[in-house]
């Protein structure tokens, strides 16, 4: 499919250039306000992945890989998973009678409920999950859609 590597017509490219900023900001809003309104790490992460997929589909493979190279996406994936694990292990050492995944920030500094800085480790865990889900879905989309599968008859040399 040539349009996957070269991008689409200029009308599609212009409109998607305006729209993908809104989609990215909406995804980040879903992640950050995940403890107050519907959303959370999973919903925000998949919407951010969708903004990156829109960029690749409209402008072609080269432009997409210039904005977010594959090895950077792999690194972000691992950073998200490690951040989640570090938040969990820190709960064991901090706080009185600490256990795995103890919400130690909420016990020490309980903020005002219904505000942004209120729920302890929950917004940090949301950001870690969103990083992980967004980069995983982007990498698997790039690998599966941009692969060229060519069947050669056995016996012929390539």
């Amino acid at each position, binding site marked *: 499919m040539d349009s996957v590597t070269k991008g689409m017509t200029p009308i599609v490219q212009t409109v998607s250039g305006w729209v993908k900023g809104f989609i990215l900001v909406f995804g980040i809003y879903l992640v950050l306000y995940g*403890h107050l309104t519907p*959303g*959370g790490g999973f919903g925000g992460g998949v919407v951010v992945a969708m903004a990156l997929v829109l960029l690749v589909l409209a402008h072609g493979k080269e432009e997409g890989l210039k904005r977010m190279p594959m090895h950077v996406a792999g690194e972000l994936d691992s950073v998200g*998973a490690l951040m989640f694990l570090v938040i969990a292990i820190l709960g064991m050492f901090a706080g009185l009678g600490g256990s795995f995944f103890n919400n130690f920030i909420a016990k020490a500094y309980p903020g005002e409920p219904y505000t942004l800085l209120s729920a302890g480790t929950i917004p940090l*865990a949301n950001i870690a999950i969103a990083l*992980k889900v967004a980069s995983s879905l982007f990498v698997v989309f790039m690998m599966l*859609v941009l692969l060229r*599968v060519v069947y050669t008859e056995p016996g012929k040399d390539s």
Partner: protein
Amino acid sequence: MLELMGLLLIFMVIAAIVAIETRDLLAAVISVTAVGFGVIIGFFYMRAPDVAIVPIVVEVLILVILIRATLRVGLKTFVGNRAFFGMMVSIAMLMVLFLAAIRVFNDLPAFGEPIMTKMIDAPSRVYLANGLHDTGAANIVTAVLLDYRAYDTLGEATVLFASIIGAITIIRKKARKKPSEPEVEEWTV
């Protein structure tokens, strides 16, 4: 109305039968996307908004991946099932499974009355009553997912990581280079 959910489920069953039986692969892929969107409307009807955002994006990604896999030049088309005897045995086994599993549904509570209305000390009651006070989060689903049951979320992150690594390993073009002949060091005494 509970009847709206019944009509939605009948629509999903018909779309699933069309997806399995039709000969055209593009029509099958579009029908399975219709089943997915029926599930999303069902989630909105069940008062679950933050569960409903995720399958919208997941359905679009699965649609693009499946179309990329099915539409290629020179795909040989064929039709048919596996051996006839095997097909009859499978259908008979599915009928027996259906009739046996229907009896289980008499023990489940009726649709519209969850278990927490009948059990006084159900965990859901504890989470709903103390969620805001213990964690400070207004979204009780996020509080359950990341504070009360955070270990399950760690398990999910692990499974997602492993399945994505598995998919990448199968697809990747470059294999590891075989180590060439070991270099022989010459010792000069």
